[in-house]
């Protein structure tokens, strides 16, 4: 769980950084998108790799959850948590939100099934117009709200996930414990802020077509 999760997190981080090029304008983003699609072997290796990582992560999560449910057949009548964070107690829920969001996101912007109007549109330089597609999408308040909700799920999931993974890998040291403890919330905050900035910038017409 920890290893597959950390690999997925590193992808999410790069994904966010790549997307930030929306602030550099259509040329930069569309050129970047074309650059990624120019290497079909690498692109499909990454896609298959990510898909298998996600499947592995989900299968392990379900198996562990079922086993852990069996470990306590009779629940407590009264239960008070002392220090378990809200994020750590909602990993299954935030994970499910994330899964639904990723499916929607892939159908929406990768496959172009939900909004096919931009699937094959090219910009002035003959690249696929990713920039125009994003601007078109996030100007729609429903799409923007849906993506913001997805980011909420992502932030919640990551804020427990990263710190927990480091602990599972046995990373613990008196000098670095503060760093390990804050790694999860920090990664979550950076990724979510980056992504939310894109959504809001388009929605508030700061970035436009």
């Amino acid at each position, binding site marked *: 769980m920890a290893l597959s999760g950390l690999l997925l997190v590193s992808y999410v981080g790069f994904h966010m950084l790549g997307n930030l090029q929306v602030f550099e304008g259509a040329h930069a983003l569309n050129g970047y998108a074309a650059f990624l699609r120019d290497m079909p072997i690498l692109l499909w290796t990454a896609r298959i790799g990510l898909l298998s990582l996600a499947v592995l992560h989900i299968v392990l999560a379900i198996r562990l959850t079922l086993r852990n449910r069996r*470990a306590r057949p*009779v629940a*407590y009548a*009264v239960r008070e948590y002392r220090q*378990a964070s809200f994020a750590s107690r909602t990993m299954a829920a935030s994970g499910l939100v994330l899964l639904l969001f990723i499916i929607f996101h892939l159908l929406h912007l990768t496959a172009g099934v939900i909004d096919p109007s931009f699937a094959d549109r090219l910009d002035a330089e003959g690249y696929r117009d990713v920039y125009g597609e994003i601007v078109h999408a996030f100007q729609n308040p429903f799409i923007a709200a849906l993506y913001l909700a997805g980011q909420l799920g992502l932030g919640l999931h990551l804020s427990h996930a990263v710190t927990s993974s480091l602990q599972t890998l*046995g990373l613990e040291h008196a000098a670095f414990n503060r760093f390990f403890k804050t790694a999860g919330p920090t990664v979550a905050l950076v990724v979510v802020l980056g992504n939310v900035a894109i959504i809001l910038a388009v929605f508030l017409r700061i970035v436009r077509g």
Partner: protein
Amino acid sequence: MRFTLNIWRQNGPDEKGRFVTYEAHDVSSGMSFLEMLDSVNQGLIAKGEEPVAFEQDCREGICGSCSLVINGIPHGPDRGITSCQLYMRRFSDGAVITIEPWRARAFPIIKDLVVDRRALDRIMQAGGYISVHTGGAVDGNVLLISKDQAETAMDAASCIGCGACVAACKNASAMLFVAAKVSHLALLPQGKPERTRRVKTMLEAMDREGFGSCGNQNECEAVCPKRISVRFIARFNREYLRAGIVESGLPAEPESPHAEST
């Protein structure tokens, strides 16, 4: 002081349990939680009813016998103590207090609030021991152990095996218990001979007993009467990784010197 107690009553392991409400009158604020239960039981006995069964022994927080989930928290609202060290002045007069046993598949209820914690003993049998040769005692200061090493080992060794970590864990995992035992033995030279096998056999034993897995929520650390840190769980995970690497150099089927006792 007076309290309303919701206590879990269950006649036997396979019987159906339920909450029964009792009134505790004339409770002194200086009474410990177990003394308060004693006085309730005296009342029940006087009325010819079956007293509430709960486990206790030393009543000074070192034996690990008392095992009560008080208002949803193992060992009650105070940190770093066992149920027996909790005093009634901690509660407001007239409070409603819910008392439950440890709940885990690996800890079947024997009666009322008493659970069978032998699963922890079986985990210890699987690897929580060291090899000591018989014969003359070793001279003092032959094995040099640094102060830091000794202190850290002692922090882990302070585990009294009460099982509150299991009771508090969402997944009823015994990870903090196993991690404390593995860490304490791995930190000291006497524990080195079995170091590599111990971490695997104890983890396997934990899985066999039906405990869940660790989700790093750190609830165990918060209720531990000995305040054992979850840092030992990270250390355990390191030991496990190390064992996976070192093990390849060991014979596949080690002959267990303690096979007859398991």
